């Protein structure tokens, strides 16, 4: 069965990244722009555009309201479903934190899944300076995305902007979008192009299964004689993988090497050796090479490293939970008095409420003490 991929750019950032990725992809792979904002869609140079939630937003953005984003996606699932009908992998690219993408990403992934496709999410997280509200909105969405995606690649924005040398706002964002765009296209190419050592989505998924659900991505290019060195340096010294620290910590790695017809076996060996020097001994490495005739004298290396799930559970006291989950160890109970006669009032979003002081119920990596409706991001009129 051939691999039919679709790339969906969701929301403002998602569309920009997807349009950059389109430049590195063959025409047979559809790239689809999805947004609530008609103006932004109009400016986007992706051919296939789907406006969602027109009835709800009047063609404007979501104004940072992720609930509106979710409802928008749920309103207009039919055109999405049509797009996904014959696809077996759907990659959703989105910048989390705002309205449209944050709310709609899990919903769109679910539509893709229901259409029978394997789903992958490629998301960025907001800068710390964007404020706590956007961060928590993004983290909340990330949990939803993680449920609906078979594979999840997370790029925190601050990692991205360390990479980019430009400091002026315009070019810096442009460069960041290009980098992400080429990472996406690099990934798609590895998964779809013919190669001698083939990687497919199953490899990616089994890699993700070994992790706690998220991956970091490194992308490097090189040309000329020292192309191997250049590509490796930009991966291992760049901030996308935290100067290689992600590679060192990863439980498993997926390495895709894309080169022109002049790609030499020795070069592949050299790349793998450079990585082997850095990664853990017990790290599970999966590699693949693909030949892309348009890449003359060039080399593109994409590395996906599994990463620990470090998004806090809805409450901040999450740290000991990691250990708990693995070893089933019981957390030390604090000197908290258990008194049923006082009203235990737990306000606000996200409390584990009365389960604060007991061992969390963790199933498949999710803390099920957190209310189901919060984890699923379901909203209702109270």
């Amino acid at each position: 069965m051939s691999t039919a991929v679709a790339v969906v750019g969701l929301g403002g950032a998602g569309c920009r990244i997807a349009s950059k990725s389109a430049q590195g992809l063959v025409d047979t792979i559809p790239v689809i722009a999805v947004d609530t904002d008609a103006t932004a869609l109009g400016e986007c140079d992706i051919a296939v555009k789907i406006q969602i939630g027109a009835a709800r937003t009047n063609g404007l953005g979501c104004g940072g309201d992720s609930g509106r984003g979710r409802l928008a996606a749920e309103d207009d699932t039919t055109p999405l479903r049509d797009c996904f009908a014959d696809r077996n992998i759907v990659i959703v690219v989105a910048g989390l934190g705002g309205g449209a993408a944050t709310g709609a990403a899990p919903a769109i992934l679910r539509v893709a899944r229901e259409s029978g496709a394997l789903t992958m999410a490629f998301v960025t997280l907001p800068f710390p300076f964007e404020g706590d509200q956007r961060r928590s909105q993004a983290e909340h969405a990330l949990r939803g995305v993680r449920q609906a995606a078979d594979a999840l690649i997370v790029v925190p924005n601050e990692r991205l902007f360390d990479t980019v040398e430009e400091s002026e706002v315009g070019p810096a964002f442009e460069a960041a979008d290009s980098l992400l765009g080429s990472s996406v296209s690099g990934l798609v190419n590895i998964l779809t192009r013919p190669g001698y050592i083939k990687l497919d989505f199953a490899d990616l998924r089994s890699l993700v299964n070994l992790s706690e659900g998220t991956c970091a991505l490194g992308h490097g290019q090189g040309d000329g004689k020292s192309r191997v060195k250049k590509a490796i340096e930009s991966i291992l010294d760049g901030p996308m993988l935290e100067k290689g620290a992600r590679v060192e910590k990863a439980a498993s790695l997926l390495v895709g090497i894309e080169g022109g017809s002049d790609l030499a076996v020795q070069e592949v060996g050299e790349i793998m050796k450079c990585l082997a020097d850095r990664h853990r001994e017990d790290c599970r490495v999966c590699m693949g090479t693909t030949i892309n005739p348009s890449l003359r004298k060039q080399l593109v290396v994409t590395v996906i490293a599994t990463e620990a799930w470090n998004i806090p559970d809805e409450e901040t006291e999450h740290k000991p939970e990691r250990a708990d989950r693995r070893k089933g160890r019981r957390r030390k109970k604090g000197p908290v008095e258990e008194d049923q006669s006082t009203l235990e009032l737990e306000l606000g979003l996200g409390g584990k409420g009365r389960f604060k002081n007991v061992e969390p119920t963790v199933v498949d990596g999710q803390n099920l003490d957190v209310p189901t409706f919060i984890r699923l991001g379901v909203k209702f009129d109270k």
Partner: protein
Amino acid sequence: MPPSPIVGLEIGTSKVVALVAEVREDGHVMITGIGECPSSGVRKGQIIDASNASMCVDSVLETAEKRSDVSIREVLLAVSGAHIQGAVHSGMVPVYEPEGGISEEDIEEVIDVARRMNLPPDRLVLHSISQHFKIDGHHRVLRPAGMVGAQLSHEMLILHGVRNRLNDAINMIDRNKIQVQDTAISGLCSALAVLTPEQKKSGAIVIDLGGGTTDYVAYAEGVVADVGVLGLGGDHITNDIGIAFSIPTTQAEDLKQEDGAAIVETSHNSARVSLPAEGGFPGRTVAVKALRTVIHLRVKEILETVKERLDRRELFHHIGAGIVVTGGSANLKGITTLIEQVFGLPCVVGTPRNVTGLATAAAAPEYATATGLVQYGFRSSKDQESSVVIGGWFKKVLGR
């Protein structure tokens, strides 16, 4: 001489119950005394506040003693908690005289081998339940004696829990006065109380939706084939409601019991219920649809988790008699409909069978565990040696 009374004690997350009962030869339970109080210091079936919990236990046992007019010396204890796990362990022995057929000694030996599962030192075996025999790798045989073959293997479902958690519960009982005779997993007790022999034979699943835990038991071909405990229960539903509407736990609990349902009906689109002012909180109203959505999502998730666990053991093709739901949350409106939707199997609410006595209330799903526990105690005392009655269980008394 009348049969000596059996006392079952359940230290649950929402309530502590002690039943004093006489069990007739045919398994009929006559309750002669009951003690009950809302639980405190228990979460998800585990003790988190020993002093509060043991106070509850003391008062419950005292009430039960008074009502039944017996002095309680020994109790049976139901245990639960997500630390309880099950695993199938198999043993294999060569048949001593292949020509002469399989002997009782061969059977004893293979059972012994199958029962000896290596467990980490912090774990304790609660029950070992015989599954079936295989001769030379095939045939599923229930009684292999006399059959011919060279190799006899046997599978055993080993149910074990964390020693310290179990002792936490045992330590709630004042040792100077009362001994713990035996412990049994709550879910197994519930199954024992609510299932008919026919249901066991044709295969059934019992889901005990308790306050702190959800226990499930699957019977296949008359034998307990899987037992599990999830650290999720009615408390989670209440907690979700409390958080969703920013109301205190007590109000959330009332709301759940009065107006809650496991399914959302469209006819409730605009209905609202009012919450009385309480403890300084002003009165307000809550949309019924929202309330039921919160409950529906949680209960559905719990059920789906149970289904997934049972799926892993590939048990569903053995289930001919559907699902019996019991425990406190079985009182939730629409629960059977939701279970039928999730599992695609018929579902009924199970109440303890064969029970009479003072408390007609005891024939409600929330007393399934305590009644089953008494029945368990009766059967295990009757069949110390032969283990046929309860589908061939072997049990291990908790050493202290």
